[in-house]
């Protein structure tokens, strides 16, 4: 446990007690901006007007403007578990706290409602069975910050309050969203199935729990890829909804995904990878399966741009086996598994189809159709039809079908679009199957716990349509957070009986959201984009022009001034300004796939392929559309051509997001914010600017901004009293006094501005920074007292030493006196006489002693004589007895001889007796014989007699 503890608990050494505080209060430490570290500590030397001279750690003096300075928290707040408790709430302090905790191996930190987690880039022993047990049923403040604590709280709240819960994990790629999501599920799988009484054993988790855990490797194999930032980057968002019954069992689950980035299928950067499954398959599929899938070497696939890129610590062939096993657990049969892999192989093969532009003609041709043949073989379609559908598709023009030859660019585009659509369909098909497997229990779920794992706010160099969608989502999620916080804060104030009008900061985000999603009056970005898609001659530039005309006065909208390009516009998000590049938004918003190919595939000879493409022919109504096409594109245009319905990618996304938000609004949300510490995948390194940027994007700083509006620091009365009583010791009378009264007296004594604090029912509320001041005063006071005490103690020591010295002096004096007395005595006549006479005094006593000794001698002699006489007597007796003994011994010998003699006689007699017995036996035998013979004779005699009679 002790090893683990250091990753969870703060070491409560003396630094926190007040020793380190001396430095802080005397030096007036503050934070100033720094190029390298974000912020660095400095101590104030001089203040003049708006400028401040500070001294850095290295002794250099710098002048900074007052606005740049951020206050530093007293050391008491070092590595606090909840940053909302910080008294100086500012970016520098938040960064510092996260950094310090991270360096100590503490990756989880609360910030009010948020749980902030920094990717450790190494395995920490904080997810074991023991730890799970530790967090079970504990309140948030009883245990160190952990994703388990968040999960457990959500779970208990769900059970106790019958309210659905959600855990929202957001963050950049590589920040650990997916890992933390997995930990949530793992925790729930253990905790929520232990109700059956099968606790303590992971292996005993039920079938459903197993499937739930195994769903992840499948989704990861098909939906994750290696990117520059992240070896296992999820290229899609997901919402996992786990359903529980009344008693808290898991009864089922459902997974929804958002925005699978299918473009990873067709191109990646040099050190990146496409989706894992391709690599698993090409490395792992052997022998017969390899032939069946028509697999080739990595270098043969154009879509796998960099060939076989390896992922560290991961064997692709092993992963292939694991993925197949996971599929088996989730009930995919052999045929389905092969079908899935065939689609993957097809996607790769599509990349190898090459077109050439015919000379003198616009039209494209396919000189070598080997790759196309392979594609068609794998998908069970006719190669001629396929080639036609790509090169000369037929379109409906004014009610008539017209064949139209395609250029090389158009054909290439069509192939890429097909690859993407095919992969996307496969992914959704897999998801549907997984959901079916996870939802097989018939029991009704009472409530659910949803886990959202979705990319956080993105600001790139080049921001496209995908970024708009993601940022739009994050605006909505941030709004949800602000709103939740507002509600909770209000409750807290109400509970404590404090009058305070809190502003709903959720409203802050509304203008930006409206700018994006408003359907009309005036139409928002998405609506305008849809509108442009209607016009045949519209371009991306015309779209931006329209946008600019409509929203030129919108407070969140602007045109970047310095950019020449016309396809740019800027949106002021809560996390910052984002320049969007609208190039190719019109195509991105529509489905680029042509009907000819889809029709072909939906009539494939393979049932599996048909299944994947089957909804093409179906009339897609509103309902089914929202259900099946969460994030995507293929379905809408199909229906457009058939039914004239126009559903764009943006519209669908907005719808599925709307649905998600409705779900989330009906839950009690729990917020987890994942942070990537650096872009080098290195443990123990924090890139300050990168982290600050994320804190800004994920709303942690926004949350803090809101906190600052109210009274963010709350201390329960007795704690307040214990810590600060030293400042107002005389204000409180001796004896008992209840906490509130004492605190009220204390705060009055301290003469604080009434606007800086509020006294609630159990706590005292402070504005940000007030506690820092109290801390400072407390430190100064404490130092004063300690110095006085030290003076007192030194006085004590000196006096003790002095009294010892005095005693030594007194002792010395006594010795001196004795010596002096002796010296005078030495020559005194009487004394000399006495010393001479003294030995003689003993002679008279010698006679007396002699007599005494003689008497003693007499006595001793008498005793000796007596003993001698006794000895003689006893010796005599002894001799007598010995003689007697000898006599008896002789007698005994005689007897023994006699006995031996008679024994001899006895033996002889016995021998004789035996001899005689033998003779007797012999005679007896003979007698028997004779008797027998006599009988025989008798018989004979009788016979003869009879004969005689007869005769």
């Amino acid at each position, binding site marked *: 446990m002790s090893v683990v503890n250091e990753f969870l608990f703060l070491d409560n050494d003396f630094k926190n007690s007040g020793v380190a505080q001396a430095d802080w209060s005397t030096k007036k430490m503050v934070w100033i901006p720094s190029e390298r570290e974000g912020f660095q500590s400095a101590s104030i030397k001089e203040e003049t007007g708006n400028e401040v001279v500070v001294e850095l750690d290295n002794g250099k003096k710098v002048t900074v403007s007052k606005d740049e300075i951020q206050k530093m928290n007293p050391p008491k707040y070092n590595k606090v578990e909840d940053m909302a408790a910080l008294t100086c709430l500012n970016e520098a302090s938040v960064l510092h706290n996260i950094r310090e905790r991270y360096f100590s191996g503490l990756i989880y930190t609360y910030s009010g409602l948020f749980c902030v987690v920094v990717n450790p880039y190494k395995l920490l022993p904080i997810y074991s069975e023991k730890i799970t047990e530790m967090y079970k049923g504990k309140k948030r403040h009883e245990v160190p910050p952990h994703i388990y604590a968040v999960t457990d709280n959500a779970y208990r709240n769900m059970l106790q309050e019958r309210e659905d819960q959600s855990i929202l994990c957001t963050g950049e790629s590589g920040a650990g969203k997916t890992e933390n999501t997995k930990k949530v599920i793992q925790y729930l799988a253990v905790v929520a199935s232990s109700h059956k009484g099968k606790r303590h054993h992971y292996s005993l988790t039920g079938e459903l729990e197993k499937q739930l855990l195994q769903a992840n490797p499948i989704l990861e194999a098909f939906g994750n890829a290696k990117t520059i930032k992240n070896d296992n980057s999820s290229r899609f968002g997901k919402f996992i909804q786990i359903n529980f019954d009344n008693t808290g069992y898991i009864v089922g689950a459902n997974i929804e995904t958002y925005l699978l980035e299918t473009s990873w299928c067709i191109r990646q950067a040099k050190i990146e990878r496409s989706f894992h499954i391709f690599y698993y398959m090409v490395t792992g599929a052997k022998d017969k399966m390899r032939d069946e899938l028509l697999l080739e070497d990595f270098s043969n696939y154009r879509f796998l741009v960099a060939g076989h890129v390896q992922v560290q610590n991961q064997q692709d062939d092993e992963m292939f086996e694991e993925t197949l096993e996971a599929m088996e657990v989730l009930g995919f049969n052999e045929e389905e598994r092969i079908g899935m892999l065939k689609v993957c192989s097809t996607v790769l093969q599509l990349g190898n189809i090459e077109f050439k532009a015919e000379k003198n003609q616009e039209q494209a041709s396919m000189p070598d159709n080997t790759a196309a043949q392979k594609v068609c073989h794998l998908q069970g379609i006719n190669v001629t039809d396929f080639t036609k559908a790509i090169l000369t598709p037929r379109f409906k023009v004014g009610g008539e079908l017209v064949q139209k030859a395609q250029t090389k660019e158009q054909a290439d585009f069509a192939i890429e679009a097909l690859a993407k659509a095919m992969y996307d369909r496969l992914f959704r098909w897999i998801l549907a199957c997984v959901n079916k497997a996870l939802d097989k229990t018939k029991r009704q779920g009472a409530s659910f716990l949803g886990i959202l794992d979705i990319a956080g706010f993105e600001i790139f160099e080049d921001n496209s349509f995908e970024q708009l969608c993601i940022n739009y989502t994050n605006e909505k999620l941030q709004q949800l957070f602000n709103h939740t916080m507002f509600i909770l804060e209000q409750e807290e104030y109400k509970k404590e009986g404090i009058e305070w009008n809190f502003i709903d900061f959720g409203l802050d985000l509304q203008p930006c959201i409206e700018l994006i999603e408003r359907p009309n009056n005036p139409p928002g970005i998405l609506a305008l984009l849809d509108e442009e898609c209607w016009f045949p001659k519209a371009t991306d530039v015309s779209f931006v022009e329209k946008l600019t005309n409509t929203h030129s006065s919108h407070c969140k909208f602007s045109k970047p001034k310095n950019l020449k390009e016309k396809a740019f516009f800027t949106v002021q998000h809560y996390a910052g300004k984002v320049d969007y590049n609208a190039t190719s938004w019109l195509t991105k918003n529509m489905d680029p796939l042509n009907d000819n190919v889809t029709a072909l595939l939906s009539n494939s000879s393979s049932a599996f392929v048909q299944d994947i493409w089957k909804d093409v022919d179906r009339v897609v109504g509103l309902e089914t559309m929202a259900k099946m096409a969460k994030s995507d594109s293929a379905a809408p245009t199909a229906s457009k051509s058939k039914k004239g319905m126009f559903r764009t990618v943006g519209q669908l996304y907005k719808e599925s997001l709307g649905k998600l938000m409705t779900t989330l609004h009906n839950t009690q949300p729990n917020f987890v914010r994942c942070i990537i510490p650096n872009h080098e995948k290195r443990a123990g390194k924090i890139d300050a600017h990168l982290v600050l940027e994320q804190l800004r994007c994920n709303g942690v700083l926004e949350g803090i901004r809101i906190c600052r509006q109210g009274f963010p620091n709350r201390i329960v009365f007795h704690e307040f009293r214990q810590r600060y009583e030293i400042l107002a010791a005389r204000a409180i009378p001796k004896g008992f006094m209840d906490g509130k009264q004492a605190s009220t007296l204390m705060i009055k004594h301290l003469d604080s501005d009434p606007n800086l604090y509020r006294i609630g029912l159990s706590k005292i509320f402070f504005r940000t920074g007030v506690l820092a001041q109290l801390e400072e005063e407390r430190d100064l006071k404490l130092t004063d007292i300690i110095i006085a005490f*030290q003076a007192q*103690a030194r006085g004590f020591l000196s006096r003790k030493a002095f009294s010892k010295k005095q005693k030594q002096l007194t002792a010395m004096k006594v010795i001196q006196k004795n010596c002096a007395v002796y010296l005078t005595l030495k020559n005194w006549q009487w004394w000399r006489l006495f010393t001479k006479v003294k030995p003689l005094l003993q002679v008279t006593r010698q006679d007396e002693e002699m007599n005494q000794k003689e008497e003693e001698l007499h006595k001793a002699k008498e005793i000796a004589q007596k003993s001698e006489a006794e000895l003689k007597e006893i010796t005599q007796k002894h001799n007598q007895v010995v003689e007697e003994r000898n006599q008896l011994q002789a007698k005994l010998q005689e007897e023994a001889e006699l006995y031996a003699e008679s024994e001899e006689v006895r033996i002889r007699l016995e021998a004789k007796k035996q001899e005689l017995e033998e003779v007797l036996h012999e005679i007896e035998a003979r007698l028997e014989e004779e008797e027998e013979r006599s009988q025989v004779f008798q018989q004979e005699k009788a016979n003869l007699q009879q004969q005689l009679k007869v005769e």
Partner: protein
Amino acid sequence: MAPKKDAKKPEPPKKAEPAPAPAPAPAPEAPPKPAAVDLSGVKVDFNQDQLEDYREAFGLFDRVGDSKVAYNQIADIMRALGQNPTNKEVTKILGNPTADEMANKRVDFEGFLPMLQFVVNSPNKATYDDYVEGLRVFDKEGNGTVMGAELRIVLSTLGEKMNETEIDALMQGQEDENGCVNYEAFVKHIMSV
């Protein structure tokens, strides 16, 4: 240990406290000034008995035999005579001497008296309650005790840092079997002499 003897010596200064009552008037002006103290304005106001005791004590510190003591002994003598000045106060009275001066400069009894008088006039005002309150800060359990180890760290790192020998002598016999110090008893003990 030897209460009888102790009672004999520290007493005189205590007696002295009421005595200088008329004197403080000019002296208290001095403390707020950070610069060296002007001792010429201090009126020495001890009675004959006190002066005798002080002289005797003073003599005890003279290790050379020139009837003077070194600067670095001044604080000790003042403390032996029942005062509790801080190190800072003493250095101030001595005119912020250098380390070299502390060791080598010497002062005679007549020069010492105004210094003592100055300290007597501005005594350490902290009370038993103040000390207890200050130590309570380190009472984590709220049970009236602090860890001896923590107390050592506090005394050796905060304020006018004390050295190990000083602390060892101070803490002797104060820690219970768990290494805890009952600070109320501790303060009483320190203030008893």
